[in-house]
Structure formats: C-alpha cells, structure tokens
C-alpha cells in the first residue's frame, strides 16, 4: 500500500462521489498533479448520494450555466460509454393547464440556452412510453437527450478515480475522513486525517450531504444547503426487458404536476433490474435533515443517505401516479428496496461552487445533481486553473451569498421552501420567497408598509415594487396609458401601479428606496492603485475628488465581471456603490485582487452604515432646492452631472450623487442610516411620491437600455459587444486590458447587445402578452434560434414593458449579421411567435437617447 502522503498540491475531500471523481479527472486534464483524494467511506462511495441516486439526466435546465453543466455531463458520460440516451418525457395532465404552459416555457428556455426539447401530442407520448395512460394527458415535452447513466454514476466515479490513479497524478485513500482543516491567515494549509496530516495548497470539498459540516466544523463558515428526504420506491417484478441486458428500456417519465417521476430498471438480471422505480419530491411538508443528524454507516439500515420510508408519506401522490401509469397498481411494492434518499437542496436553488469567501485555497463543489457532476468537475477545474469558466458562474458561486444568508435559520427556512418547489408548481421568474423574509429593511420600511408596499426581496433586502397608496392617485391619473395584463403569468408578481409611478416620475418627481445598495469603502496607501487596476474606466489619477464614475470590472479574457460606480472620496479613498444582487461577489473580487497582487488597501463593507434614496424627475431639483439649506448648491453649474457632494436638507446631512439610472434629473441621496426616516418624511411631506423599485430595476431601465450585471452583462461577452467600451483606453494598466484592447481592435464583434421592441403583443387567444424571463430570438425565415459564430444563442437577457415608450422592450445579444436597426426577428413566447424589431445596436436608449433629461 502506498505510503500516506504528508503533502499534496490538492486534497479532494469526498473523493468517492461523482463530483469528487469529476473534479479529480478534470484537474488532471487541466495539467494538475500531486492530487490526493480522501473519503470518509469507500471509493466509489457507498454512503453518499452518488451511491443511491436514480442517475437520470434531463436537459431541461432553466439557466445557461446549468444547461452547460448538464449537457457537458451527458456528453461526458456518453463518451465513456456510460450513457443510455433513452429520451425523456415531461407530461401535462388534462386538469393541469399550468403544467402545459410550463412545458411550453421549458421548450422556449431550452431554445434560449441550448437543448433539443420539443412538444409532442399525447398519442406520440404514448407511442414512446407505453406505460403511460394516454387519456390522462393533454400533451408532453420530449427531450431526446435525456437518459440514464449506466450502470450507475457510482461506477463512473470509480472508473474516473482508477484512471486518475493510473495516470500517477492522483492517490486516493478510502475510509479516511477529514478531521480538521489547517487555516492560517485566511489561507488553507492542509487537512488533518486519522492517518496523518496532509499539507496542501488547495483543498476541494466535494462531500455532498456532509459538505456543510466541513464548512461549519472545520472552516468556521456555513453553506446554504440542506439534505432533504426524497422518496424512491420500487415495484416488481417487471419482466418486460428480460433477456435484453438493458439497464433501462423505456424513456424516462416525469409527471411534475404530481412532483413525481417513473422509470423502468431494465433487464431483471441486472443488479437493480426488473423493477419500476418511482420517485417523488414532497410538495407539502418536505423532511429536511440537518447534516449533523446524518447517521454513520454502521448505524444505518441501507446507508446514511438512505432513510427508511413509510408508504403513508407518499400514498396520496402514488394514487395519482397509478392513474397515469397503471403498471404501479399491477406490480407489487418492494418495501425492502424502497427508501427516502437524501439529496441536497439550497437556499436559492443553485449549488455552492467556488473558492470559500473566507479562506483562500479552500474550494467547494457542493449540492450538485448527478446530471451536473462531470460538468461541475470541469467548471471547478477551469475556475481553479484560469480563474474563470466558459459560462458566467454568478449563479453557482458560493461567494454570491451575503453572511446573513449563511445563518442557521435562514438556511433552514429557504431550503425548506426550495425543497417543496423542486418539481411543482412551476417557479415564476419573478417568484419571491415567502420564507427568510424581513431580514434587511431600510430605514423607511415602516412608512413603506403603511403605504401598502408590494414587497419582494433581493439579497435579504425587502424592496417595494410599488405602493398600494398610489393606486388611488397615480393609477387613476395615468391608468389610460397603462395596459392591463390579462394573462395571469405575465401579471404575476407585478403591480400595475408600478407603471403609474414610472409615469409620475417622468412627468413630475418621485423617490425610490435604494438602501439595498451594497457599499464598500476602499482606503489605504494602495487604494488608488487597486481601484485603477480593477476598473476599466479611469477612477484615479486626475479624477477629481467628488466625482463618481460608472465602470466595469473585466476578467483577463475581457469578459464582463462587474458593473458598478466608483466615487472618489479622497486621494486614497474610494466608495464603491454596487447592486444588492452582485455586491458580495464584487467585494470578494476586490478583496482577492488586493491579496493576490499585494495592494495594501482596506475594503470595508459600509452597506449597513448608509441608506440611499433616489430623487428623480423633471421637478427633482426644484423640490430639493425647497428643502436644501443652501439651494444654490444644487444649481446645475454648481453641481454638475456625475458629481458627488455633501449638502444638507433642513439640517439633515446627505451626500448627493448626481447620477441617474432612471434617465431623469436628480440625485441619489446617500445618508447615514439614522437620518433615513426623517429624510423620507420630509420629502413625502414636500409632495414627492414614493416610486417602487420596479421602475428603477425594470421598466425605466429597459427604456434607457441600461445593462445589468448577471442579466445582460456576463463574462461570456466583452465590453465592445455589450456597448460599454469607453471612448478611449486609459493609459494605466488594468485587469483584462490586453484582451480589451484586442477586442476593440477587431473590425467587428461576433455579437452585439441590441435593444428590441415587440411589434405586436396579441397572442392566439387575442390577449396582449407581456413577456417575462429569458426567451429565444428566432430567425423569421426558418424559425431557428439565432447563434453567433461562437455558438452563443440569442435570448432576451432583459425584457419589460416601458410605459413612457408604450412598448415592450427587450435586450439581447444578436449575431453580427442580424445587428441592423429595423431588422425584424421573432421571439418565441409560450410556443407562440411574436414579431420583434431591432431598435438599437449597442448602447442607444429608446427614451431620451441623447440623455438630455438626466443632464438637465
């Protein structure tokens, strides 16, 4: 037996699962060596989820990254000869029109992000899957690439580890748990095990259900993930595929309206063959299991990740399942094989991948489905090697969570909520969480509640999207310009009054609560050097104190990593004002850049110190001058656009920043939190109506074609494509400069971010539609999704109705050849095609294109 190593380049904890094995494989593929894999049990695992998972894959992912990891994984399994592409069905029952609509949405999302799903009739579904009761369903989605990892993902994990060991670059040790991590000055140093200490530069935690315990007990942090029981039942004997040698005979069947799936297990002579497997995701009272309560191997009947199952827990959905697939009633229930498998749910539905926010060199790859296992291995290896991934990783980055989102109560509540929505009901793109709410509230919150605020949440912050109090006044006033959204889906989590507030702000004035802004103060001897190195725009040098600059951070390939505003507050003091959604990741980007490049700078989170209220509209200056102790200070010549100055409003100190995300005259007023309520009351009494965040974040943003990070701005695209290249390249060195310069010098880009409008909104039922979410853009001549020369697909990165423009506006990257103003395209929305016109190529807003209003 190999001598136990005392050092390694990388230690993988949890080597025996599909994720650990895939991480090892891809690190080796990317040139890494000296990798040690340890596992608390066997390799491949006999205790983890990989050991019991149902091992099927569907490509019906709802975002670009998941589509990437899933399709990558399927091709990976397939290349190994370990994939049975039997196809898969998702069905909609006759009494579930909502599910039928959801299937249409999934086909659209699939076109946007890249799968081959399409809708088929009930008869076609029956033809493909004979166990189906045809009369029960109105239609189905067919995924030709769905299939099963054969014989098991556990086998694949074992083979990957063996190949890794054969390469000489990986050593593995089973029955060797991590008992502690050695962390020094915020950096990982090594791993303790019962067999000895291994010093390591990198440690990757791929422990699935146990991962959170490594984080909490050994790294002093937490991960917003939780195991949940997932009933898996077996029925037999089923001898349809006797003698075929198959692991699966019929296509996979998902009946998400019943939160259930069903598949056969092939030839009875295979290990688990000769049965029908039926799985369920609890819709009403999911049974979460704290990782602390996981049993040890010797305590469990089947394994620690397989809990006992009481059939009464699933009797109701099973009765429904028997209607759809009567075979379940004909066969016998194999109680001994059936169990509650543990899988992991997460606070926002996405996994926890990437470097620890607190410990450099400590990486997580947690809460990953089998279908994403190899793809996640690839992502982790690329990220560790290059610092970036092919697809923007904002949705999986463990750094996206703020500290409050990694606390026990929040994790339990949010995970509980995601657990009962795994399959059903369909989750709306705007759907707010009901749990883990009212955690972060602005100083105005009580007033907003009195006004009947329609609250949604982002990053723990409560934000009113509109105010019921404005319905009597503003909606009355502007109602004839605001269409009714008669389609329930389009109107869901939307309040019509928001558009009235939008119009009032455009014609008069309004105040918008922006206290959710993430604010970071950067100071210290190298603050200027750091900010200059991070930013594409010039923020240091001769940038005057008091000036605010919108800038992007880009990665080394020129991919857009962040968009935010940097205000110079002193020679060596900068304030970074950032969106609530992106803040924590951008904070880590700055902090790590400073650490890696030796900048001596302090980065402080000041979010909770400052509130922000935006006051905008043609009457903004007039109103503020009425309240200002020195009204003349607000005159345009004294307070130019993009300037940041401190002044007082009836004695209340504010820092006014003359910038506008809503394209109107006015200021962001930043103030110490304690003054917030007084400021709000003063403005409210002066007649400034509150305007919900809907106007700021959606309707007016789209009218101004303002790009949003993680929606329109992604690392897959560069600044020239996004229309955000600066007129000149600053002379100073900055991160990604070389790539940026090269991209600017190209004759043309593969794609450009364009603004489009809907040319007709009426659907086949005669109802005007108001699209929400990502939808594909098609070539009207052939109905194909547009793809640029790099294979990137065109879909609506943002879409909203603009009441001032009177049209539904979308943004989308279009391939170069389609980038012509006036060009007509088609958007697919719930299986219907709607005409779209390219209004602008690059950064040209529909509302006030010359930006005169904001500068007025």
């Amino acid at each position, binding site marked *: 037996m190999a001598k136990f190593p005392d050092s390694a380049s990388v230690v993988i904890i949890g080597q025996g699962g599909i994720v650990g094995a895939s991480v090892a494989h891809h690190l080796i593929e990317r040139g890494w060596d000296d990798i040690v894999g340890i596992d608390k049990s066997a390799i491949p695992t006999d205790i983890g989820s990989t050991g019991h998972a149902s091992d099927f894959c569907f490509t019906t992912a709802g975002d670009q990254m998941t589509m990437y990891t899933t399709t990558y994984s399927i091709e990976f399994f397939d290349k190994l000869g370990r994939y049975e592409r039997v196809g898969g069905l998702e069905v909609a029952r006759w009494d579930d029109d909502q599910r039928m609509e959801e299937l249409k949405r999934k086909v659209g999302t699939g076109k946007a992000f890249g799968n081959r799903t399409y809708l088929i009739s009930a008869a076609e579904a029956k033809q493909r899957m004979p166990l189906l009761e045809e009369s029960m369903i109105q239609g189905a989605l067919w995924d030709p690439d769905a299939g099963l990892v054969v014989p098991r993902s556990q086998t694949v994990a074992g083979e990957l580890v063996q190949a890794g060991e054969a390469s000489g670059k990986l050593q593995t040790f089973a029955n060797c748990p991590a008992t502690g991590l050695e962390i020094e000055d915020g950096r990982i140093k090594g791993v303790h095990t019962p067999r000895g200490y291994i010093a390591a530069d990198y440690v990757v935690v791929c422990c699935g259900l146990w991962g959170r315990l490594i984080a909490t007990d050994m790294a002093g942090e937490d991960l917003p993930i939780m195991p949940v029981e997932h009933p898996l039942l077996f*029925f*037999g004997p089923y001898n349809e595929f006797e003698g075929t040698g198959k692991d699966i005979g019929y296509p996979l069947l998902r009946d998400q309206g019943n939160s259930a799936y069903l598949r056969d297990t092939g030839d009875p002579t295979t290990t688990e063959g000769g049965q029908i497997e039926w799985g369920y995701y609890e819709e009403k009272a999911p049974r979460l299991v704290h990782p602390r309560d996981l049993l040890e191997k*010797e*305590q*469990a*009947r*089947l394994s620690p990740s397989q809990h*006992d199952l009481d*059939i009464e827990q699933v*009797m109701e959905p*099973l*009765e429904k399942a*028997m209607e759809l697939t009567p075979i*379940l*009633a*004909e*066969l*016998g*229930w*194999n*109680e*001994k094989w059936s169990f509650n498998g543990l899988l992991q749910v997460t606070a926002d539905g996405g996994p926890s991948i990437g470097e620890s926010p607190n410990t450099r060199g400590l990486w997580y790859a947690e809460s990953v489905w089998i279908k994403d296992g190899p793809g996640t291995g690839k992502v982790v290896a690329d990220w560790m090697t290059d610092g970036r991934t092919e697809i923007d990783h904002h949705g999986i980055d463990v750094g996206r969570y703020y500290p409050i989102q990694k606390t026990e109560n929040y994790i339990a509540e949010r995970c509980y909520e995601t657990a009962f929505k795994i399959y059903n009901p369909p989750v709306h793109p705007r759907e707010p969480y009901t749990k883990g709410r009212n955690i972060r509230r602005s100083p105005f919150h009580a007033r907003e509640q009195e006004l009947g605020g329609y609250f949604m949440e982002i990053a723990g912050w409560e934000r009113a999207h509109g105010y019921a109090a404005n319905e009597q006044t503003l909606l009355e006033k502007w109602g004839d310009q605001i269409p009714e959204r008669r389609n329930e889906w389009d109107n869901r989590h939307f309040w019509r009054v928001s558009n009235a507030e939008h119009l009032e702000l455009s014609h008069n004035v309004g105040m918008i609560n922006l206290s959710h802004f993430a604010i970071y103060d950067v100071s210290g001897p190298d603050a200027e050097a750091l900010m200059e190195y991070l930013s594409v725009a010039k923020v240091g040098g001769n940038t005057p104190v008091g000036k605010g600059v919108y800038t992007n951070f880009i990665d080394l390939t020129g991919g857009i990593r962040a968009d935010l505003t940097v205000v110079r507050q002193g020679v060596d003091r900068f304030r970074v004002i950032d969106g609530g959604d992106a803040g924590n990741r951008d904070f880590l980007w700055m902090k790590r850049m400073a650490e890696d490049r030796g900048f001596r700078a302090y980065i402080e989170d000041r979010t909770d110190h400052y509130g922000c209220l935006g006051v905008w509209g043609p009457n903004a200056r007039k109103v503020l001058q009425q309240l200002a102790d020195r009204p003349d200070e607000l005159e345009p010549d004294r307070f130019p656009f993009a300037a940041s100055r401190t002044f007082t409003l009836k004695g209340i100190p504010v820092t006014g920043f003359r910038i506008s995300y809503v394209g109107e005259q006015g200021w962001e007023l930043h103030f110490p939190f304690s003054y917030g309520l007084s400021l709000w009351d003063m403005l409210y009494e002066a007649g400034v109506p509150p305007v919900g965040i809907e106007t700021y974040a959606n309707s007016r943003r789209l009218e101004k074609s303002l790009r949003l990070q993680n929606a329109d701005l992604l690392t897959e695209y560069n600044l020239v494509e996004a229309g955000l290249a600066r007129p000149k390249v600053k002379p100073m060195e900055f991160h990604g400069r070389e790539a940026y310069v090269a991209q600017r010098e190209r004759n043309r880009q593969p794609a450009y971010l364009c603004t489009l409008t809907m040319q007709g909104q009426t659907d086949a039922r005669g109802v005007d539609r108001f699209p929400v979410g990502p939808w594909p853009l098609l070539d009207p001549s052939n109905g194909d999704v547009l793809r640029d020369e790099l294979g990137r697909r065109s879909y609506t990165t943002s879409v909203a109705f603009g009441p001032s423009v009177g049209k539904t506006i979308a943004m989308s990257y279009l391939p170069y050849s389609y980038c012509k103003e006036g060009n007509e395209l088609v958007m697919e929305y719930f299986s219907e095609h709607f005409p779209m016109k390219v209004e602008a190529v690059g950064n040209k807003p529909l509302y006030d294109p010359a930006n005169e209003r904001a500068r007025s």
Partner: protein
Amino acid sequence: MKILCPVKRVLDPYVKVRVKQDNSDVDLANAKMAMNPFCEIAVEQAIRLKEQGHASEVVLVAVGPQQSQETLRTGLAMGADRGILVKAEPAPEPLGVAKILKAICDKESPDLVFAGKQAVDGDNNQTGQMLSALLGWAQGTFVSKVEVHDDHFLVTREIDGGLEQLKIGRPAVLTADLRLCEPRYASLPNIMKAKKKPIDNYTPEDLGVEVGHRLTLQKVEEPPARQAGIKVDSVGELVDKLHDEAKVI
C-alpha cells in the same frame, strides 16, 4: 379450511441492532420495524393455499404492542382476510404467546396454524412447538414444502443432513423455514384495501390468559468490536503466529 397465521413485529432484520445505554435491552426507539421474515413466508404460503383453493380464509394474529397493527396490515395487504391484535406489553415470552394463540384457536377453530419457525429477534424457536402441545395437535416444524390432502398434510422438513417427509394429520401446527416460498410484494391497491380489512382487538385478559413472565433479562451487550489486525513481515512469521497465537494450524 381456515388458516391462522401468527405474525410478529420485530426489528427490521437489515437494521443494525443497537443496545440501550444501560445495557438493559435492545434499543427499539425510532428503529425500523418489520414483519418477522419467517412469519412473512408462512403468510405467503397460507395465501397461496387459499389461491390454490385449499383454504377459504387466512386470519392473522399478532401479539404485542399497538403498533403490531402495522404488521397485520402488511399481511393483509399481501392477501390475508382479517386480523386479530392481542395487545400485550411487554411482549410475552414464547409460552405466553402460545397460550394466547391457544385461546384464539379455541375461538376461531382453524384447521391449520401456519407460523414462522422462529422470530429473528429472540431466535427462540419455541412458540410453534408449545402451541402444538397446548392444543394437542400434530406439528411439523422447519417446513420447506407442504401439500394439502383431505385428511392430512404432507410436509417436507429441513433437518440436519437432509430432508424429511412427514404425513401430518389435521388440524396441525406447521412452522415455515426459509426455503418454503418467496413472499410477494403487496400491490398498491391491496395496500390500500388492507386498511379497510377488519382487525379485532383483544387483551390477554379478554381471552382469560395469564401471561406470566418467567424469565429475567439480565444484560444485553454488543458483540466485542473486531480488533485491528497486524502486519507480518514474512510468510514464516505468519505461519508461526497462526500456529502459536491463533492456534488455527
């Protein structure tokens, strides 16, 4: 022909047995329970006899805590007709169970009692034999095959060194061995139907049975943990150790 099948609720045989902290007994708190596998085999055989037309009714009897009702439902879902629960806590010893079953037999007058050869919790292998004695009926234990004839059963028993065939007069007590048959999985409709099948409830007092406890459980201990092995440097050393220390060669 009416068949009576006693069924026992035991710790699921696939569960690792835990001992209570104070060593007073096996810890059953929150543990998965199941029908004793030998009882399951007997029930399966009884149902098959009914399906083959030999029997008209299969009645299950459980003696134990209220939750033994779940065990009855399991058998009812397999196809038994009705159940009888004799609620008795703590669980009676084999003689107590045999006396209760005797009382039930007096009420029900079955033609055949088909039991498991033993329960996997206590491994006593006594109840069937005691019941046969109390009833004064013929007995066939460790049955691996059974044929029903008009006035007798022809059974095959698994005994040391081979198989034994016995012709046993009716009524009789038979106890099932492992290879008698493979229990079926109950179908979902039958699981649901089983909920509606009748279960009569009794206590030992109702039946006039005195369940005396004659045994005292002194102490329950886990088997000693296996000791770690050692590495030897040569074949010679291995042979020496096997000879001198392990004394196996």
